[in-house]
């Protein structure tokens, strides 16, 4: 193509250059340079102080471990439950379309709705769950005090499994029926067909779902902000919630930047490892 079209291309790209330059690349540079500074406007240079501080910051360590557990729980749960649901609504059942739609609904609500609604449902005294359990003569539980992390993992799964179900369903429908039929003729039972045919062929979907869920698990914020306030005793102090408080409560933009930057490195590392493992697991029939 001639030069004229190249010029048109650049002209059409001009808004995108401006936008991604200002709203993505400048912030990335800033978060890195801010990591070496301190203060409410991150304007005092402190060298590696922020990074040495991370090494001995127990609260950050705790928050990181909490977030790892949260990420693992929400990722594994979203894969196992999402896949199980997909297999269920893939069966030739009447009304399956309605179920597919219904299961997707929580994912389309705001995390604000999910957080507020479940905080109400799980409230030790006022919550409908305990009141129903109590009136049925069953033992009640202060869910958010006894098992706070498991509880917010559960709430997050309630929101996300419909989404992963739709992804797995698309993956399942991409597997040619002939593979399973051939295996059946060869005498494979349903269990063998699932482990030997369906699951290996779903590997790309599973990889995608796990990458997405790990990334969104590390980024979870509102579950702590709305439901638990990070407590009790920092047991649900999700990493981004911690960073949010360092930045906007303690007003230390430098330290908060360093913490954000470190999490970005962790997320990139996780993604790279997952892609490596995932590529090795891919099969062709």
């Amino acid at each position, binding site marked *: 193509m001639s030069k004229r*079209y*190249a010029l*048109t291309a*650049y002209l*059409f*790209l001009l*808004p*995108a250059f401006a936008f*991604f330059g*200002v*709203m*993505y690349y*400048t*912030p*990335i540079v*800033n*978060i890195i340079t801010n990591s070496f500074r301190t203060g409410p406007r991150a304007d005092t240079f402190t060298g590696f102080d922020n990074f040495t501080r991370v090494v001995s910051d127990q609260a950050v360590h705790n928050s990181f471990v909490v977030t790892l557990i949260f990420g693992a729980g929400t990722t594994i749960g979203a894969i196992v439950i999402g896949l199980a649901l997909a297999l*269920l609504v893939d*069966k*030739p*059942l009447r009304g399956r379309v309605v*179920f597919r*739609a*219904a299961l*997707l*609904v929580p994912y389309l*609500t*705001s*995390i*604000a*709705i999910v957080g*507020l*609604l479940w905080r*109400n*449902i799980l409230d030790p005294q*006022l919550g*409908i769950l305990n*009141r129903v359990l109590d*009136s049925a003569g069953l033992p009640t539980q202060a869910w958010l005090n006894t098992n706070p992390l498991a509880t917010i993992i559960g709430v997050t799964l*309630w929101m996300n499994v*419909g*989404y992963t179900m739709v*992804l797995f369903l*698309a993956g399942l429908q991409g597997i040619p029926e002939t593979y399973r039929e051939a295996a059946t003729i060869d005498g494979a039972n349903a269990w063998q067909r699932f482990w030997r045919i369906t699951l290996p062929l779903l590997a790309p*979907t599973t990889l*995608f779902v796990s990458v997405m869920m790990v*990334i969104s698990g590390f*980024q979870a*914020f509102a579950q702590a902000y709305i439901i638990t306030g990070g407590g009790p005793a920092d047991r649900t102090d999700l990493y*981004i919630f911690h*960073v*949010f408080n360092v*930045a906007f409560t303690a007003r230390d*933009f430098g330290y908060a*930047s360093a913490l*954000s*930057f470190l*999490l*970005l490195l962790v*997320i990139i590392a996780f993604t790279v490892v997952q892609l490596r493992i995932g590529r090795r697991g891919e099969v062709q029939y």
Partner: protein
Amino acid sequence: MLNRMSPANRVVSYLLLTVVGAVTVLPLLYMLSLALQTEAETLSADPVLWPESMQFGNFQELFERAPFGSFILNSLIVAGGITVAHLVFDPLVGYVFAKFQFPLRNTLFLLLLATLMVPLFVRMIPLYTMMSNLGWINTHQGLIAPFLMDAFGIFLMRQFIQPIPDDLIQAARIDGASELRIYWKVILPQVKPALAVLGLFTFVFQWNEFLWPLVATTTEDMRTIPVGLTLFNQEYFTLWHLTAAGSVLLFLPTAVLFLLTQRYFVRGITLSGLK
């Protein structure tokens, strides 16, 4: 087809579906119930599953206690503005990467895709500083500007524009159509369904967005619904019937869109799994 399953298998499947469906839907129905209860009912020791008489006045009370009208207006302006921006920019940029040859094309595309790896939390603090320097904290433009386009929307549109035959574009050029006119008259009409998916998803996700509006607003009247409602709940934490009423209002537009265009939603999610 429908008769291939054994009766036992079918019964178990329906049983599981019913349980899963109940766990999914009952909490949302309870939200609706709560929104229609009296304050006394929300506090009663006997669990109230559905109110004795529906209290539609709760919605009115909500508007009296909080500037909920402003919340709705802010949400509409912000989510609507961002959606329009996406519909304007994402297909244009996608078109360029699908159909033009130019120096540095692949490098630029890679730099664009790299932004997919940059979550909001990485941008949050620098954007906050940038917006305060511009005086844009607590303004609509401050809520809109960081989300005018995104790499995923551009990538999606590129995928849809690529299969359009080049001959169509060449023919229009020979006819003397301007480049912008070709984009508008030849390209865009071919990708209408993809635009619908893009628009729906952008709107619903921005309508629901929580973190940035929380960070970038400082006064109550500038809050969007998710943030306004959450902070309302912190202030009036015993008035669950009003918080639930607000939640119903927040979910209403999404529910209506989903009922009308279910197919697009499922398609959009499936597309997000494209590699």
